[in-house]
């Protein structure tokens, strides 16, 4: 057979709509496309002219799986534009909401999106047929994340309580404390998940990535920090655009990102774990040691293990944040309307999410720019496939297809997020 193709017109178990095409001629890979056909929604266009406080309600709608990430990057960028620093209590509560989103999103991915690839099933529903207790426990853990998001934010998909300046209302202390027994259970489940994830049979595949993630010396970064690149070292969060650029390719409604010298880079749990391992809580580190984890972890399929460890970290931090939650004073700070601009990044479950806004003196958005994690990873996904495809051509077609599909799923791509974004970068032709 001179010509062969791997063609997955519609990827399953990913967020949003995308496909995969690999063209092979005489045993040589000629063409690879990760096709993003999720229609554009033009968020950056219709953010223009909106009042700053409406922004987090709008950007949440970019993604139903990680709305908090969008709200947090928006809110922090806008607070910078106004020169406002949130109170320590408000910041701690933001981390609580954000970690709950990591729980919900990571457990979904580990058990329902990527997990079936590693256990030989089509879906978690099918897995439930043979191991109902595994799926039931996963659903319970996911529900704890969702319920905690609802307790802090009003609801789990598109929460309503976070605002520029702080919070509309302090959540009730007792209501949050009531989560502690469930969170202790969730922590145990997350530790079990780490042990389970370590036993799975991952495809043998390693890549020399440039890892990029937010970094803080005092904790595993989620809400804020400096950017850390495994190639370039520390970069100020506000210098994001100087280091990373996007380009628009024909087969995609999403823009592809590159490092400033044109190379691709990786964001997400694998990047975070490799860069920020030292900042994990002692118990999360202990879990990593127990499974004999060796860093750097360079196998993209093992993002699964990184997610499992981050779920442990998320549960630990939720417990700590709730125990220390003592809201005092006004939940939101007064803002003085002034023209200005601000940018900020945070760590969405699937990687670094950067926002920049320019505001006029009546508080209206003049310009918005959003760089979602999946758009940054798209170029990397295609590059991985170029490395992987020649190795899998010998496999039976269905297995080769599944191995390639699985690679993309392991990235936890959020395709709704990746589309419809704006850049000022003009592509050089």
């Amino acid at each position: 057979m001179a010509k062969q193709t791997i063609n997955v017109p519609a990827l399953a178990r990913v967020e949003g709509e995308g496909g995969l095409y690999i063209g092979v001629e005489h045993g040589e890979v000629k063409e690879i496309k990760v096709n993003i056909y999720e229609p554009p929604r033009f968020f950056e266009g219709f953010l223009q002219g909106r009042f700053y406080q409406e922004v987090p309600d709008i950007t949440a709608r970019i993604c139903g799986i990680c709305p908090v990430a969008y709200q947090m990057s928006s809110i922090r960028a806008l607070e910078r534009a106004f020169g406002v620093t949130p109170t320590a209590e408000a910041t701690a509560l933001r981390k609580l909401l954000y970690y709950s989103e990591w729980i919900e999103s990571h457990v979904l991915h580990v058990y329902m999106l990527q997990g079936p690839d590693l256990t030989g099933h089509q879906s978690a529903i099918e897995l439930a047929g043979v191991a109902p207790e595994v799926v039931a426990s996963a659903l319970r853990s996911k529900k704890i994340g969702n319920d905690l998001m609802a307790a802090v934010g009003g609801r789990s998909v598109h929460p309503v309580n976070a605002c520029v300046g702080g919070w509309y209302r302090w959540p009730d202390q007792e209501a949050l404390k009531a989560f502690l027994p469930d969170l202790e259970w969730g922590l145990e489940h997350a530790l079990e998940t780490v042990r389970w994830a370590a036993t799975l049979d991952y495809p043998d595949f390693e890549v020399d990535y440039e890892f990029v993630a937010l970094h803080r010396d005092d904790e595993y970064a989620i809400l804020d920090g400096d950017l850390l690149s495994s190639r370039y070292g520390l970069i100020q969060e506000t210098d994001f655009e100087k280091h990373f650029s996007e380009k628009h390719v024909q087969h995609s409604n999403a823009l592809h990102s590159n490092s400033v010298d044109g190379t691709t880079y990786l964001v997400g749990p694998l990047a975070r774990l490799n860069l920020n391992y030292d900042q994990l809580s002692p118990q999360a580190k202990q879990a990593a040691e127990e499974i004999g984890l060796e860093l750097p972890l360079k196998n993209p399929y093992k993002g699964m293990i990184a997610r499992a460890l981050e779920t442990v970290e998320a549960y630990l931090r939720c417990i700590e944040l709730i125990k220390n939650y003592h809201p005092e004073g006004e939940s939101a700070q007064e803002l003085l309307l002034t023209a200005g601009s601000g940018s900020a990044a945070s760590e969405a479950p699937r990687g670094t999410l950067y926002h920049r806004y320019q505001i006029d003196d009546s508080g209206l958005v003049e310009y918005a720019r959003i760089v979602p994690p999946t758009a940054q990873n798209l170029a990397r996904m295609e590059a991985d496939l170029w490395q992987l495809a020649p190795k899998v051509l010998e496999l039976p077609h269905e297995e080769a297809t599944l191995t390639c599909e699985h690679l993309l799923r392991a990235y936890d791509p959020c395709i709704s997020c990746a589309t419809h974004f704006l850049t000022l970068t003009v592509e050089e032709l």
Partner: protein
Amino acid sequence: MPGVKKPTIAVYKFSSCDGCQLNILNLEDELLDLVGVVEIAYFLEATRAMLPGPYDVGIVEGSVTTPEEIERIKDIRSNVGTLIALGTCATAGGVQALRNFADVEKYTDLVYPHPEFIETLEKSHAISEHVHVDLELWGCPISKTQLLEGLTAVLQDRRPNLPQSSLCQECKLKGLPCVMVAYGMPCLGPITKAGCGAICPDNGRGCYGCFGPFINAELEAFVPVLLDKQRYPGEAVHMLRMISGNAPLFVEAAQMILEQEDN
């Protein structure tokens, strides 16, 4: 029950954020029971497995925004028995319908360096603008309770028991003070369908209309009150042109205000 064929369900995604489909997977307490009584025949976000159609029930998330989506929704309509439009994108065009009030070409030029690669419609449409829809479930995101009730009703061939009142009734049931009266905040509650549990007033802010228009809304009475509560110029129109901005009643209310301002 052996021998009894389970009804088949297909879940489709159009232009959307995935949040309503996610709320199907967020039925953590019910999901395993649900798949015991229905066959998930097509649901890309959850499974690689696909059974051939036609299907008994089709659930569509998202709005129609491309020429390809117009063709796809027609195919789906002819391939399913009952069609449920899931969430405010599917019932009113969703947040991406904000483009309906602007010039899309301008947006494309703004967002993409190569606008010629992008194929998109000028407007974001509700599913019912293209095909007959049997049941609309509003919400951004939908309420899980309403989803279960809607699905159960379809399977039992009865009328679903969905909230008919405005959001105000949910505030009263929860004993929440009216944010308009007590705090002087603008709120779309009086003209918005109940369903979310009044989460915005419960968090000390006004409703921004995720669940779409309340059917018996009194615009003539409401609009002047809303205008009176504005905290910045244009706030009332911004609130109306938000998540459910393309729902006819909200379009009309925003139009009333803009015309008043012109005079």
